[in-house]
């Protein structure tokens, strides 16, 4: 019979690495310590929690009524539009469906269409993280709207199972001169709630990514509401004045589209 191990002290298990102080230099997961070849329990749990939050953000459904109520004080009518992706699974597998309106939504929006389109149409889309627009759309818009004085605005369109380009078709229905799509970005492990803002001038079905300007990582821990609103207002006015957006627009900040939007 083999000998029983001596009393195992908790302190001797999964010790920290001696270079723990270097962790302040990078958000990367360094100096994690190890249990044999493997991660210590605390680190398995930490990564598991971050991934769980990201997964929940991907799967979460946008609570349209709650969002509409939060937008009410802005004083603009709200409309709900749905893409041609009929489920979250279909949405994730088929980005082409998420870029087109469902037949029902297309009919609803066409019935509301007017020939004198607004200068700016604001679309609030779930994208890959409904958590982001749920939390950040209303405060961002309340900071943005005062900076858009003098421009005509369409209704606020809440879009579900939506990719960025769905806003193009919605804008086409309203004959809008410019569309802003506020959309949940692909959740990162430390940022399940990043909101992106895409500005497209002269939007139409088939507008390409190079025609868009993008602000990314809008959330209190990233690009704050006030800063995002003033950058966005500047972009909107520059794009309207030039009649173009995207890489051809001589305006910083940050043109073009990151992948998987």
């Amino acid at each position: 019979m083999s000998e029983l191990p001596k009393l195992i002290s908790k302190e001797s298990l999964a010790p920290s690495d001696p270079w723990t102080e270097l962790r302040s230099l990078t958000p990367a997961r360094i100096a994690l310590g190890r249990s044999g070849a493997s991660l210590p329990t605390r680190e398995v749990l930490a990564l598991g929690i971050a991934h769980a939050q990201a997964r929940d953000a991907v799967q979460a459904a946008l609570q349209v009524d709650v969002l509409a109520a939060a937008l009410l004080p802005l004083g603009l009518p709200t409309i709900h539009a749905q893409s041609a992706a009929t489920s979250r699974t279909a949405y994730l597998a088929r980005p082409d469906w998420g870029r087109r309106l469902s037949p029902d939504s297309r009919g609803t929006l066409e019935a509301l269409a007017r020939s004198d389109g607004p200068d700016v149409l604001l679309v609030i889309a779930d994208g890959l993280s409904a958590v982001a627009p749920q939390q950040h759309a209303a405060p961002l818009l309340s900071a943005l709207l005062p900076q858009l004085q003098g421009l005509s605005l369409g209704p606020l369109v809440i879009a579900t199972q939506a990719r960025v380009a769905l806003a193009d078709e919605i804008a086409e229905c309203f004959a809008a001169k410019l569309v802003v799509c506020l959309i949940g970005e692909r959740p990162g492990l430390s940022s399940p709630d990043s909101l992106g803002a895409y500005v497209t001038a002269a939007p139409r079905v088939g507008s390409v990514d190079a025609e868009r300007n993008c602000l990314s990582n809008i959330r209190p821990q990233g690009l704050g509401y006030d800063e995002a609103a003033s950058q966005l207002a500047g972009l909107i006015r520059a794009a309207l004045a030039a009649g173009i957006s995207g890489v051809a627009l001589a305006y910083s900040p940050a043109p073009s589209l990151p992948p998987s939007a």
Partner: protein
Amino acid sequence: MSYRAAIGLRSYVFDSLAELLAKASPMRSGDALAGVAAASAEQRMAARATLADLPLTAFLDEALIAYEADEVTRLIVDSHDAAAFAPLRSLTVGSFRDWLLSDAASSAVLAAVAPGITPEMAAAVSKLMRNQDLILAARKCRVVTAFRSTIGLPGRLAIRLQPNHPTDDARGILAATLDGLMYGAGDACIGINPASDEPAKLRALWEMLDALIARYEIPTQSCVLAHVTRQIEAIKAGAPVDLVFQSVGGTEALNRSFGINLALLREAQDAALSLKRGTVGSNVMYFETGQGAALSANAHHGLDQQTCEARAYAVCRAFRPLLVNTVVGFIGPEYLFDAKQIIRAGLEDHFCGKLLGLPMGVDVCYTNHAEADQDDMDTLLTLLGAAGVNYVMGVPGADDVMLGYQSTSFHDGLALREMLGLKHAPEFESWLQRLQLIDAQGRLQDARSLQALPLHEAINQLGDGLRR
């Protein structure tokens, strides 16, 4: 030319070789998105049965993308080695699979016939192979390359240390690099994906890695994964560039969307070779690929994504790379929906690359919107270890804070070594032993008892900076 098959009372017609390959491919979301996937499970099997009877020479007779229209096709056709192909000439795709799994297909024989195998032949036979077959056949294909370390030897595994930082902060990158070295990672290379494309910032990264490698005599090579034109400019400006990196694809149109062509890659290889910085070898190129890239650039010419991927390996092998890896789960669920598809694609890519004679590694990875998690990555990593993968990624805690995806960690590398008894690249192993970071058996030592080591000097210098 069209192809016919009958299963029971139903008959199936495939209008082209491209359609036959696409319909024979295991189900994946990217092929459905492209509209080329089989419409039913039976149609898929009908395509496979038809493919099994197809002579390998069919792929020499019919180009999937016209010779005149695509320089990758021209590369495949013009570089085909008829003498190496001679022993395989009478085989069908189905009998090719049987032969690959037989004892007759030894490591030496597989290396000899590799220049006679085209990417389309490799893709075709992979579609008839189960995961088990892909592992068994790949582990017989040994591809050994070298620069300052030797990678791909039997019983060994290398790790690319990937110390990315969201803003390319030099101290942050150095901290992650030292972390990885202390975990015994970095024998494949130390490779940074920069957030910035500014030449001055890139130059600083090359200088930092060069100084680190020189100061501590680390038998590895650095790489800054900027666009290839940036790297050529840097070499001309005198930057200490070890490896030249580029993402490549299997069609001329996809490569155009990456801003490259074969001539540019040749220029890059020549530039890197001119520096003569390798000590034990002169493989200077590092390529990355991945299924779905061609469709995402609308550059797939109606081909399925796995066949496009295999064609990318023809581009790679023209440049004698040190490292090639397929970034298998990075692209997202619209191309590889879930872990089943990611695992299958990783094994296919590794097999096809190895069969064609490439030093294949795999970035075992996934994004948060794919149906996959760490357990699935453990599965794929273990399978690839069994298949003899040349190298995998080492990212702190598996969480890449610049690129926003999960890859394999330094710990995962240790786990794979322990599970399968895999040693480091030999030069790196000696270095780690000299520093007493590993023992004679290759096991990592307790870091707390090693305060006098050279790497601690670097750690302490970084730490001093924090305290000042």
